[in-house]
């Protein structure tokens, strides 16, 4: 059948089983939007208020399901606004396909109205991108874009489609198979290496499983649990892996690294073998590299060869998919009992668990503790970036993978709320909560309109400390309390160092009124004793709810490994 490029676009999305599309139209995507109108019964279109919002929604959709999230924007400014969301997805290996309109092919390179070199701008922040210059290539390109996004190490892919290509016509042919000769991800690990790894595990005395987002993307939680139990080895889960190991399991060591669990960090420094799976030895995890895990041999299982021996030298690498490799590995490892090692670990764990002061002040950690308790870890929690993110990682205990979504690699403030909308649209039956800072939430607050109009029942929990808390914490600890540009109630954000950080009566904005202005429900909480009731009540409201918790202003995230320090130079509190 002869079809226009715009019609082919819709056909391809239907073939790819796309159910939701997030975005904003503009001059260079009008032909496509005309067809989106026709397809509105088959593909739900969510009109966002900012393209960054659309990108993060697609990301939240993808993280919470494992399916590809899809967004669309116009050329120039629309495409430029998508870049932060693409970079966020790229750093965390999230399958997203983004479409952008482009000026007509004859004008490309002429500084035409709303022209930007979109493939040029997004090249470093995508797994791959395409500029379609012939309508005959469109269907195959879209097919390849989805394939590349979700296979191998997943990632965002952008397809730039000039307006004349959207209007041009050709015979529509859906390529049943994808075969890209230069792209052949390896899924099964080398059997010789697997056997070597098994030997190493069998003879280790103090092994540690260090797992990352690769477990989530390869859907390997069940296999991980089997492996950990069989080889009786504690598991530390990175920010990206939270939820992929049962929360109250005796082998769970929770998050490692800068704000990670004391026991996990000490386990790194004392173990004789690290079994890294789908994790990338990020500097926020390893601390000072030269002092990292001094006694350990290292096994690294990852689908991406570039992750291996990038930061730390690895003794045995296995390139392959986590689920496949663990399944194979299970055949060769012996059942073990490492009870002496686990005893040591449980001593560290008892000495310094994640904790906070249990007084009658409204402390942010308490709120997250309560969220974990009330939702039984069955809610999808999305975070912003800063202290709110680290406290969420420490105190929210999700029962399942894909129930803790956070911008790990890029640390993008403004990620949480739109990602929560995407996650809720993908999981309408689940409770979805965005845990936010009062700074971060303002970076994509405009999406309240999107949420309310689409009747998205997400809960926003603002841990309102009246400041850019994480930056303030660094200034308190490493810059002699010289609070520069962190107070959200001052025109320049600065506070003289002798002034203690006290909440100003100014509320700019007043989040409760703001929520109401958008047609959402706004609730303010100022006392600890109101937290539990408010949360229970809010979770029952079938609407977008903003809860503004006025928390202790100068609360800090502990423990903390200062930047550049070794993992065992961990600070557990300020003296």
């Amino acid at each position, binding site marked *: 059948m002869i079809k226009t490029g715009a019609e082919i676009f819709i056909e391809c999305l239907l073939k790819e089983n796309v159910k939701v599309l997030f975005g904003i139209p503009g001059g260079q995507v009008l032909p496509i939007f005309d067809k989106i109108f026709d397809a509105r019964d088959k593909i739900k279109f969510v009109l966002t208020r900012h393209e960054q919002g659309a990108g993060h929604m697609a990301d939240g959709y993808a993280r919470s399901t494992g399916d590809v999230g899809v967004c669309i924007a116009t050329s120039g400014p629309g495409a430029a606004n998508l870049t932060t969301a693409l970079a966020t997805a790229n750093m965390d290996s999230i399958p997203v396909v983004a479409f952008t309109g482009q000026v007509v092919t004859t004008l490309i390179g002429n500084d035409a109205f709303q022209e930007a070199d979109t*493939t*040029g701008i997004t*090249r*470093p922040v995508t*797994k*791959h991108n395409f*500029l379609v210059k012939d309508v005959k290539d469109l269907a195959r390109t879209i097919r390849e874009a989805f394939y*590349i996004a979700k296979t191998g190490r997943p990632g965002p892919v952008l397809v730039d489609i000039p307006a004349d290509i959207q209007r041009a016509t050709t015979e529509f042919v859906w390529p049943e198979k994808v075969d*890209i*000769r*230069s*792209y052949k991800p390896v899924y099964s690990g080398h059997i010789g290496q697997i056997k070597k790894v098994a030997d190493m595990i069998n003879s280790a005395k103090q092994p540690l499983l260090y797992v990352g987002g690769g477990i989530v993307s390869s859907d390997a939680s069940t296999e991980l649990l089997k492996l950990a139990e069989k080889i009786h080895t504690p598991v530390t889960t990175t920010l990206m892996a939270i939820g992929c190991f049962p929360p109250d399991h005796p082998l769970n060591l929770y998050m490692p690294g800068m704000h990670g669990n004391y026991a996990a960090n000490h386990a790194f420094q004392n173990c004789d073998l690290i079994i890294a799976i789908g994790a990338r030895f990020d500097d926020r995890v390893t601390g000072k590299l030269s002092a990292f895990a001094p006694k350990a041999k290292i096994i690294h299982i990852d689908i*991406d*060869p*570039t992750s291996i*021996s*990038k930061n730390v030298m690895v003794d045995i690498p296995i390139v392959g998919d986590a689920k496949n490799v663990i399944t194979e590995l299970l055949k060769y490892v012996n059942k073990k009992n490492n009870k002496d090692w686990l005893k040591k670990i449980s001593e560290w764990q008892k000495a310094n668990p994640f904790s906070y002061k249990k007084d009658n002040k409204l402390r942010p950690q308490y709120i997250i503790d309560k969220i974990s308790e009330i939702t039984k870890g069955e809610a999808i929690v999305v975070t912003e970036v800063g202290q709110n993110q680290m406290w969420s990682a420490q105190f929210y205990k999700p029962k399942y993978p894909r129930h803790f979504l956070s911008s790990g690699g890029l640390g993008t403030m403004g990620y949480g709320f739109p990602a929560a909308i995407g996650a809720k649209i993908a999981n309408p039956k689940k409770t979805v909560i965005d845990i936010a800072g009062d700074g971060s939430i303002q970076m994509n607050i405009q999406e309240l309109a999107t949420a309310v109009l689409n009747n998205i029942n997400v809960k926003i929990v603002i841990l309102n400390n009246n400041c850019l808390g994480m930056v303030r914490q660094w200034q308190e600890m490493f810059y002699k309390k010289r609070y520069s540009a962190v107070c959200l109630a001052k025109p320049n954000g600065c506070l003289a160092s002798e002034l203690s950080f006290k909440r100003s009566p100014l509320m700019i904005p007043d989040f409760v009124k703001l929520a109401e202005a958008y047609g959402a429900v706004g609730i303010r909480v100022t006392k600890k004793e109101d937290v539990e009731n408010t949360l229970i009540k809010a979770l029952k409201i079938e609407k977008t709810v903003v809860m503004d918790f006025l928390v202790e202003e100068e609360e800090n995230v502990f423990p903390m490994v200062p930047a550049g320090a070794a993992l065992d130079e961990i600070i557990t509190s300020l003296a």
Partner: protein
Amino acid sequence: MRHTISVLVENKSGVLARIATLFAARGYNIDSLSVGETDDPSISRMTIVVRGDEKILEQVEKQLNKLIDIIKLNDFLNVEHVERDLVLLKVKADKSTRNEILQIVDIFRAKIVDVSTNVLIIEMTGDEEKIQALLNMLKPFGIKEMARTGIIAMARGG
């Protein structure tokens, strides 16, 4: 260490930019880069000569391999291979120097490809060393212009 890296890539727009970005992002200067179609017109071969820290280069090569449009990568560091570069030199030459230059050209098995009253254009192929030697010999006469293709390379044997 000097590395000669040979890469087979899809013959498409944007591929060169992807490769160059990987080097640029790490502050690498590419010594030479040459690109041309192979016997299969849908595939190009790029030959990249670069110097740098071994560990970083290893990472760059992995990253290159990961690019979707790269089909195959070979580093010739420890591989027996042939390297060739082609140079065009415009050298000052008047009556008094012309003969001497012709002799040098002869010794190096180079070629004169253009003659005018006061300059010659000389063409030569060879590896880096040979080209450097020719350059050294001709410098005293005055080199007015030089153009090089950059190294191309091929592994020996099957």
